[in-house]
Structure formats: C-alpha cells, structure tokens
C-alpha cells in the first residue's frame, strides 16, 4: 500500500469502461492487460455460444468471449470497430469482445453500490456492483464469474 502515489487516495479505483449494445460496463483496470482490435477468431467446436473462439496473442492461444452473448444479449458479429479487451484474473487470461472502449474512470469506493436483488437474470450474476457517472448507469463486471473456470485438477 505504501507504494501507491499520494495523489490517489487509498479508496479510489480505476475502471475501464466499454460499451456493449448501448449499455455501459466496466472492469477493474488492474485486471486489464491490453486492448486490441478485432481479429478473426478460430471457432472451437462444441463450445458455449458466447465463446467466440481463440486468437493468436503473440504466440499464445487466447480464448475470446463475446461479452454481449455472455450477458444474454445479441452476439456481436465481429467487425473492425469491435475491440478485444484482454483481461487476466487469477491466472486465467481471456479476451472480452466488446463493441467499443469508452473511458477510464477514477471513482471512489463510496460511489460504487451493490446491485439490487432482481432475481435470476443470467446477466445479473456477472455484475458485481453499480456506478452512477454523470447520471449514467455503469455496471461493474465480476470477472471471476465471467471468465471460464480455472483448470480443474485431473488426478
């Protein structure tokens, strides 16, 4: 903690926000590795519909998740304007396909509020908390739920 710059109070967080189907979402910027343009993904047979496939990230095979489909919306077609946000949580790295990246937000922890309990919406479990910025609702995604599970041990 001591090595944090003084200008950033301890309870501030930085979030990367992006747009999917006219909705704003964001993730903790600390888990974002890089942002890259759309490249054609190689589809994986028998994978869930939200798994777009795999792409070559400088020699490693990176699974790409269609965030729109994952959140229960229309799948993203994959056009040049789309962006892949490479995130890494707990040793799992994956690309999130989003419509466009919008902003980097610095907000205080106090501004983030837990989502109300609305029942069994498939996308609800992926949302960790909510945030109001200039009257706009931004959903903070829980990457641990979004990303595929860490490998299970065989033996």
């Amino acid at each position, binding site marked *: 903690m001591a090595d944090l710059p003084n200008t950033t109070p301890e309870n501030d967080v930085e979030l990367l926000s992006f747009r999917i189907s006219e909705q704003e979402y964001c993730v903790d910027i600390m888990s974002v590795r890089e942002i890259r343009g759309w490249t054609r993904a190689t589809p994986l047979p028998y994978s869930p519909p939200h798994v777009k496939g795999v792409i070559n990230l400088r020699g490693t095979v990176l699974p790409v998740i269609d965030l729109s489909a994952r959140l229960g919306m229309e799948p993203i077609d994959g056009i040049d304007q789309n962006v892949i946000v490479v995130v890494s949580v707990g040793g799992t790295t994956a690309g999130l396909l989003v419509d466009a990246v919008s902003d980097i937000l610095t907000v205080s922890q106090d501004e983030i509020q837990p989502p109300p309990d609305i029942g069994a919406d498939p996308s609800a479990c992926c949302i960790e908390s909510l945030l109001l910025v200039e009257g706009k609702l931004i959903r903070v995604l829980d990457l641990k739920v979004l990303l595929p599970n860490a490998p299970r041990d065989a*033996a």
Partner: protein
Amino acid sequence: MSNDPMAEIRSSFFVECEELLESLQDALNIMDEGAHDCETINVAFRAVHSIKGGAGAFGFDNLVAFSHRFETMMEEIRAGRLALIPDTIKLLFITADLLQDVIRATRDGAAEPAGTQEVLIALEALLGENGPPAEEEVDFTPMGLSFDFGDTTEDTTYLTDGATGWSIAFTPESGLYTSGNEALLILRSLSQLGATKVTCVVPTDLPAPTEENAETPFLSWLVHLRGDVIEDDIRQVFDFVADVCQLEIEQIQGGIDLGTDPPSTAVEEEKPRPAPVTDTVAASRPEPAVTCAEVSVPEQADPPPPANASLTPTRPLNPSTAPSEPLATVRVDLEKIDQLVNLVGELVINQAMLTQSVEKAGVGHQPDVMSGLESFMTLTRDIQESVMMIRAQPVKPLFQRMARIVRETSASVGKEVRLRTEGDNTEVDKTVIERLADPLTHMIRNAVDHGLELPDKRREEGKPAEGVILLSASHRAGRVLIEIEDDGAGINRPKVRETAIRKGLIAPDAQLTENEIDNLLFVPGFSTASKISALSGRGVGMDVVKAAITGLGGRITLTSAPGVGTKLSISLPLTLAVLDGMVVQAAGQTLVVPLSAIIETAKLEADKIHHLAPSAEMMQIRSEFVPLFDLGQQLGFRDARIESASGIVLLISQEDGRRAALIVDAIMEQRQVVIKGLGQSYGNIPGVAAATILGDGQIALILDPADLVRDGNLSSPRDLKAAV
C-alpha cells in the same frame, strides 16, 4: 531470502542430494539383485556420506543425525560385519526412502517425517550384540581438512615409490587476502608442478566466521609435492605472496607415504574404520564442519560437497562412481530452456510466415531463394530437434519413484512384490515425465493392490509367492511406449461385467467382447476392488488415469489373460511441442491432422460410398469397408455433408488398429506445427487435441482423429458433449 548468497548454494545442495539419492537407489537395486561387491556398497556408502557432509556444511542437524546413523550402518556392511541378507536390503530401501523424506523436509523447512527413529533402531538392531561401535566417531575433534585438487590424487601409490619430494608449509598472514591473493589458486598452481597432497591445518581456536574476519587468515596448509621440481619453481608460485605469508620449503628424500598421512579415498577401502581427514567434513558434528565450510566459501575454495563441478571420479565427496563414464554436464534453469523452446517455436512459425510471404511476392521459384529457404527450413528443424533433446530426460527417476510406491504399497497390503524395470534410460520430454507421475503411481498401486494375488493364493496356483511387476519404457515409431505388466490373476471379467451391470454402466443383457469388458475399467465410476483399501479405490479410478494420459496426447490400452496377468500399455508422444501435420480445410475452417494418424489419402467417389444405416456411411477402400465421417459435421461446423460435393478422404488409423475415413474439403499442405495448449478453460473438446499458429498468424486446431471417430462410433458427438 532472495538476496541470500547461501540460498543458491543451498538449493544446489538439494539438487545434488537428488542425484545422490538416485545413485543410492541404483546401488541398492544392484545389491537387491544379488551383487554384493565392494564397489556397489561403496557407491551407496559414498552417497549417504556425501549427503551427510553437505548437510553438515549447512547445519541441517536432523539430516546430519539421520544420515550419520545410516552411514554407520553402511559402514558396517562395507566392513562385512553386517550381512546383506534380503531383509537387510529391504530395510535399507526403507531407510533410503526416509532419507529422501528427511531431505525434502529439510529443504521445505517441514517437520521431520515420522518413522525415522523406528527404522534406524530396526536397522541398528540388525547388528545384534556387535552393537554399533560408531558413536565414538561423532566425537572426534577435527584436526585437518583434506583438499583434493582435481586430477592430482587419483592414486596414492605413485607417492610411495621413493621419489624425491617437497614438504611445503604455507601459512598466510594478515594481508594476504586483503591484497587480493587467494590461497586456493596458489595451491592449484602447486598441484600443476607435480602430484600434491594438501592438508589443511585448522587451528583449535578457530573463531566463528563473521563479516569482519572474513579476510583474516586462520588456516594454514601443509603440502606434499612429489616430483622433479626445483625449489625455485615452488618459490615462484609464492612470488606474489612472499611478504604476506610464512613459507617453509623442505626437501624430502625417499618416499612420501601419504597412506599414513590423512588418508585419501583411494585407501579408504583397505581401511574400513579410519579416522580419515576426508571424513572430517562429514563425520564430525555439524559445528566444526560449518566452520570449515563457511570460512572456505568467502575464500572461494570449493565448498564441501555441493555446487562444485567435480573433476575426478575418485574424489571422496563425489557420487558419480557409477560404472558409466561421467559426462560433463551443465546445470541450467528449466525456465531458460523453456524460454528457448518457446523462442524456437516462434522461429518455426516465423519461418513458415516467411515462406508464405516469399511465395506471395512471387519470388519463390528463383533458385537461390528456393535453396536459401530450404536450408533455412532444415536448420530450423535441426535447431528445434536439438532444443527438444535438451528437455528430454531419462525416465529413471520416475521409475525409481515407482519402486518406492511398490515397496510401500506391497508392505501395506501384505503382498510380496518385486518391481523390475527395463529401459530406464529411455528419454522423454520432461513435461511428459512430470505429468506421467500421478497416473503411473495410480496404475502401479492398482497392479499391486488389485492385480497381484496374496502370497498364499499365488502358491496355490503354483506361482512363486513373490509377484513381479515389470515396468518398461521404450521408443517405438516416434512415440514412447510405457508398459506396466503384472503376473497376477488378470482381470476377472465376469466380476467386472457384474459390477458394471450393478452400477448401471451397461445394460444387463449387453453383449460385450472381452476387450469391451476390459475397457469398462476406464469408465468413470467403476471400481472393482471388493475391499476398498486406502491405496486405491478412493473414488478416482482408471478413468482419471485415462484422462491424464489422453491429456498428454497419449493412449492407454489394456490386455489381460486370466491367471497370467494384466498389461497396461501407454503410448505417448516424444515431445509435447511439435508435430508433423497435414493442414486441411473442412467447412471453411483450417485444421491440422497429425500425420502419424493418416495412413493414406484418397478421392471421395460416390460409387464407393455405401449406407449401413440411414445415418451411417461406409466407404470402400480397395476390398475393405471403413466407417465414413464428415470432418466438418463431426466438429459441428456444418449440419450435413453436401451430398454431391467433391472431397478428399483421409484414411486414419486408431491405436487398436481400426480404421476410419474422414472427409475433408481440401488438403492445403504438409508441415511441422508447433503445438499450443488450448488450456483447460473449456474442458476437453472432443476430437481436438491442441492448437497451432499457422504461417498467416491464424490459429488452427489440431485434431485427434482417433478420438473424433471413436466418439462417432458410440453416439453422435453432440450427444456426448451434452452428457459432459
């Protein structure tokens, strides 16, 4: 910790320990096979001795205490006071296993493993009334420390042949080290003049090493130098230090009998109970040994046993007295090798990209470009092979671990089992070895627990009471074949069938071939042991083993004959990094089929296709009918094959010899691809083994065709996926 210079030396000591343990196991195995010769016993003795020596240098008291008592027993055996009967050897094996545990516990800073005292007491009890007379050795005060300088002390006899020699007393004074001189280098230079025997004189009031006194000389050396050396030459060696040391050079006429001096290793055999100076490091209590070692470290003298590249096999602290000629080796961080492997992988991809862009530029047909690319390709391939060879390791350590598993398992189920190993030196990729350990352990336990019968039962059946498990490794057609064979009862097929029916795995009226019954063992949820033991039958069964082997790109087959035994064969790829593949297209996707699976390719001809059932097609290839699958459909990329479309058929073979035909749209090229893991994120994808990066930077999936069509035989892959 990270900046601790001792940490590195310490970790290399533990690496060395692993090697010593290996040679100890080897020696014990040889003894177990009936060879009780001096050399074998000595190898075992020296291994324990070196471990003790190193442990002493680092102040690992527990390890010193344990290995000291172990060493004492080895000494008794060496002296012939303790006979090497099978029971003794068994106990020695257990002690060696425990020694390994103690070393690991020391390394990880864990508590001493249980049972060490018991086994030592049991071992010492073997001596009977003779009692271990060894304790006095622990109490002796160190007087000197012998340094052997490389190639100079292989043989002591030449020192007694009556030649002229010199006795040189060399006492550094303060200022010698601070002026940048180094006693070790001087002693080395001396040894270049002729054969030397160096004795280090340690003062009785040697202070503990501190940072302040690190450059204060406390030790002095007595050097016996033999040969026609003139005094001037000797003096020359000391030229630079003449004013900062005391030097006495005396000529000795007649022989220098170093046998009565602090003896060197070469005479250890004739002197079973020496108070040898070479033992000082090891046999003494840790305190003085630590002192010697730590003083010598800042002076860059060889620290006792670890970390020094041993020069001659006769060094007292050297484990490598095995019959095989020791090869010069370098210890390299695995990380660095992996980095190299990755880089070479990139190189291969890059080479492919370059070839592609040269083609695109339209200069690919110019002879000099062509030959340049060709030799580039050959070089890349050679580099890749060499790098892969670095990663290859013999399976021997793995097999030794299995030997321990056999000992422990057989003891706990009351069976007599002997593990025989073959092909210990077969080299396999390190990752394969590592990931093979768990499934192999499980299979070995199964073989002991379920495969072999109890001794009484075996006798009844006219077999020797001792069961044999043969563990073998060999290279076969670009793959590694590992076989586990027991001479037990074989698979009880009626019982397997009955269990499978009871567990609802098969229908009660199902007609199964023997092979199919055997393969039920691999079905999840199957366990035949009527008595669930602590060893096997913990819920994980052969299905887990199979999954692990499949994950390695391997296949497992089982053969069994009632009353004769069971054999499990595992076939594994040599490396997990590259593969020769055929790049094909199906349903708009580029895919790679391993070349090893393809027998031949043929054109799809409508009149050769026959229907077996509405949805099942066969193809006639010469006089044989093989099941026909559409690759795109099998992978779920398209719903059905376009009936009239032309296509190419790949005839593929499965491990059990069955064949199948796969329809692809086009064959692109044949090339070497670098295997990239898909990760476990989405579980196992049926029919897909891994991925690779093609020349255009795109990812292509590498297929496991046998898996693809095997699923097809059972049910549609879609259903299977739904079940998973």
